[in-house]
């Protein structure tokens, strides 16, 4: 749950990266940590096993824009994707203000994506929260791999609902659309937070926002 402090003029938000095991949640946070101005971030904390699998969570605190004199502070968390760690996922999900669901685009991971998304809805329901109430975006990650499902298929499997979520084609290992997805969920939650309670979530485009062609970017991203 966000907290607003009029003395320090800060607003805190919590965004949770959710998704199946090895889908790229930690890679998202690592990329953000590498690329964002060090003055605007804290340390990336990873509670991982010896094999670099997330055991508890990853955590990255960020400072963002100043709105009306208030500094917005975002805390990014990942959940452990492995099925057995559901109690930990419930804990990390507690009082989340925004969600970024990371799906693995590979065909063989589709069932795990669906299971994880269902698990997300179940865990939110245990906190008496419906997915529609939480700002959320979808990432279709690993779009650079050869055996991936088409975006339309992933939209049908994961985003086939009355109120569709904004979705992004992502390559988290190179950072493609990582910041776009983070900015989108942040925008949606700030809109929700603002007094304009009638502002709708950004209308989802007919297909996911595609990965940019691998040309030099303005900011010279080449990882």
């Amino acid at each position, binding site marked *: *749950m*966000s*907290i*607003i*402090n*009029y*003395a*320090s003029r800060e*607003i*805190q938000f*919590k965004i949770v990266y959710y998704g199946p095991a090895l889908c790229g949640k930690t890679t998202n946070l690592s990329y*953000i940590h590498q*690329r*964002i*101005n060090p003055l*605007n971030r*804290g*340390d990336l*904390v990873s*509670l991982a096993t010896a094999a670099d699998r997330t055991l*508890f*969570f990853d*955590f990255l*605190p*960020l400072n*963002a*824009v100043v*709105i*009306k004199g*208030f500094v*917005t*502070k975002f*805390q990014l*968390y990942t959940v452990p994707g492995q099925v057995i760690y559901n*109690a*930990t996922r419930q*804990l*990390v999900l*507690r*009082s*989340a203000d925004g969600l970024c669901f990371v799906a693995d685009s590979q065909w063989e991971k589709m069932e795990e994506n669906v299971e994880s998304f269902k698990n997300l809805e179940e865990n939110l329901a245990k906190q008496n929260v419906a997915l529609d109430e939480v700002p959320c975006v979808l990432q279709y990650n690993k779009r650079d791999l050869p055996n991936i499902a088409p975006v339309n298929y992933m939209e049908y499997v994961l985003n086939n609902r009355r109120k569709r979520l904004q979705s992004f084609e992502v390559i988290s290992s190179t*950072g493609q659309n990582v*910041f776009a997805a*983070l*900015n989108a969920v*942040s*925008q949606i939650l*700030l*809109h929700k*937070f*603002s*007094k*304009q309670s009638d*502002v709708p979530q950004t209308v989802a485009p007919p297909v996911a926002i595609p990965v940019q062609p691998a040309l030099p970017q303005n*900011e010279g*991203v080449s990882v």
Partner: protein
Amino acid sequence: MTGIPVLTIEDVATLDGVLGDFLKKAEAELTVVIDRGGNVISQFGDRNVTDVTIIAALAAGSFAATRELARRIGEVEFNALYHQGNGSHMFMNSVDDDNIMITVFGPRTTVGLVRFYSAAAAQNVSGILKKLQRNGHGLEFTAADIAAAPIFTE
């Protein structure tokens, strides 16, 4: 609890008073009040110790993780945890169902003293937090304020 908690300047001053008094009596170095989701609500003391937001996230996780341990021996949760270091130590105690208080202290004091004074401090903090305004944060901004610049840039 529902609604976004709002800490007014008066709330922060009151909390600072309670926490400052506690630190002085317990001779501890830093105290942080967090919610169980890991958000920092208030802090008082030596702010240069470390990144408090990271302490908050980890402490919330640690507190929640031990809840299951407590259940195994028939408790609802452990309402206090003590982490002993060589020179610096940490004491965490439950404020109420939604909040936790963390105290960092060194060799100048003892865990007994910190534990003794933290009980009363937690009760006072709980009283203040229960009265926080939650029915509208009063901070109005428009879509243009949000869209003026990308929130995060590479």
